[in-house]
């Protein structure tokens, strides 16, 4: 296996990018990520992106966004209709195969032009669940009800997770929802929006984008003072049909964490892409995170959830803690699908 590291990250996130196209959003982000390590597109061996045409409401919208990369003369490039964390995985595989030493990974989501709670129905099966057009918050509330009534979690614990995000996000300029003085009582006093879920249980929807540069071996050491070496990366998937799953669990997250070696040593920090407090609770258990791991110091996805980019943003946030010397071993997590159906775990270390 080649040693591959995240050497540069850049991201932007706002509540709604009303007067900015996806291309206009990504030009400065991509240039910042490449520029920070002195690279131009000519120096990039492989480029991979993640986004969804269902957010843009336009077929092949990702091809437009390639304008932000600079793809002339033609580049080696790929796209996944998934969170950018999976584009990072594809790039990591490409680097493992060899022949190239650098990769540019980016993803973005602008869900503000449509109704994300409806758009998410298109990820359901088209025969049984899809035609019912169940609101995404209502679906998450079904899971929350099962968890609360089975004793898998308590109202108090969910509120604590919400407060952790609100407080952590107070120092994060990219967060779209934060509160330095939020407390469990104030969260529990909120009126539910999809009973039993309260507003602070549901991620604050955001528009944004993120770009990451990967490099292998000595190239990474040249480009970055303290590369975030990817020591393990793995992604797993649970069944699509929620009726066959135990919705209080996410076995695929557990499996991915084991395969990525998350528990092999102490983790200083973990960044989780959970769009609901209930799911953040499940993830902490499935990933085996202990009290010595700082979870979602940035506020996590709850503080700002850019669909299709939230996972790569978590990996970027975790990697930055290595770059800046705040942590030695971190975990970045990405999720996709209904009820944490699919999970990716990326474990990174500094030298």
């Amino acid at each position, binding site marked *: 296996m080649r040693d591959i590291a995240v050497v540069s990250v850049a991201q932007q996130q706002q509540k709604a990018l*009303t*007067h*900015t*196209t996806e*291309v*206009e959003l990504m*030009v*400065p982000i*991509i*240039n910042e990520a490449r520029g920070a390590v002195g690279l131009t*597109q000519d120096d990039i061996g492989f480029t991979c992106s993640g986004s969804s045409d*269902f957010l843009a*409401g336009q077929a092949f919208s990702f091809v437009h966004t*390639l*304008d*932000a*990369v*600079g*793809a*002339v003369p033609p580049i080696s490039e790929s796209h996944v209709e998934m969170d950018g964390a999976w584009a990072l995985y594809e790039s990591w595989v490409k680097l493992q195969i060899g022949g190239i030493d650098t990769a540019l990974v980016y993803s973005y989501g602008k869900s503000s*032009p*449509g*109704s994300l709670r*409806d*758009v998410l129905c*298109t990820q359901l099966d*088209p*025969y049984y669940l*899809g*035609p019912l057009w169940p609101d995404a918050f209502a679906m998450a509330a079904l899971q929350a009800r099962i968890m609360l009534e089975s004793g898998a979690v308590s109202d108090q614990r969910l509120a604590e997770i919400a407060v952790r995000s609100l407080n952590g996000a107070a120092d994060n300029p990219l967060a779209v929802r934060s509160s330095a003085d939020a407390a469990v009582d104030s969260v529990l006093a909120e009126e539910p929006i999809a009973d039993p879920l309260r507003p602070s249980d549901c991620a604050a929807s955001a528009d944004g984008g993120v770009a990451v540069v990967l490099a292998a071996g000595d190239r990474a050491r040249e480009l970055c003072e303290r590369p975030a070496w990817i020591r393990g990366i793995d992604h797993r998937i649970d069944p699509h049909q929620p009726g066959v799953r135990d919705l209080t669990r996410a076995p695929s997250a557990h499996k991915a964490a084991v395969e990525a070696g998350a528990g092999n040593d102490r983790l200083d920090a973990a960044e989780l892409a959970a769009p609901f407090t209930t799911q953040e609770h499940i993830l902490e258990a499935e990933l085996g995170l202990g009290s010595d791991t700082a979870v979602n110091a940035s506020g996590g996805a709850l503080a700002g959830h850019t669909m299709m980019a939230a996972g790569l943003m978590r990996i970027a946030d975790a990697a930055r803690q290595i770059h800046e010397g705040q942590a030695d071993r971190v975990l970045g997590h990405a999720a996709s699908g209904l009820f944490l159906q699919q999970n990716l775990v990326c474990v990174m270390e500094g030298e």
Partner: protein
Amino acid sequence: MSTDPSVTPAALSGEVHLPEKLADVEPVRSVRTPIRLEYDFIPGAASSGYLNAFADRKILGQRSPVDGAVFVPPRGVDPRHGAATPDYVELPDTGHVGGFCVTRLPIPGRDDLEIPYVSAWIHLDGADIGFLGLVAGIDTSEVRMGMRVRAVWKPDDQLGRTAENILYWEPSGGPDIPVTAAGTNAWHAKQITESEEQAAGEGR
């Protein structure tokens, strides 16, 4: 394979065999699951500048900071280099036909469009890429690559913030642009001319 929606697909035309306990239940032979999602599109920064200028009968492009190439409509980026293009350039409403197509089939919902009609890549004077427009005011058989054209605008009191302000492009007379320097060839022809001038300059 038939594409006629009234013909039952082969997979559904045979007998449906149900388990005994469902014997009295009406068999499901097909389901319809319509999808409708609504989006509110707002043009981005570059497109907003472009569309707003149309209300004043102006056509705006943007200039590449890398090599000065002018793009219309502007998209806020030079897609060859991924470089932001913050500078607008006002372009004239004259240019030439870079390429064209004569269409003899009607477009559903466009009853105002008489067939045959000519859609063309219009390369404005001063722009380095073409954009789409209708060519009229000339017999379709006479339209040709390199033919010079000018915009025919709606009356001033009907102008909006839309590219629909230009009804069509009509011949403006004057000598054609040679095909080797028309349309997408124009940029390459310009590059060759510039490099020859540079070589001549270095030779002095």
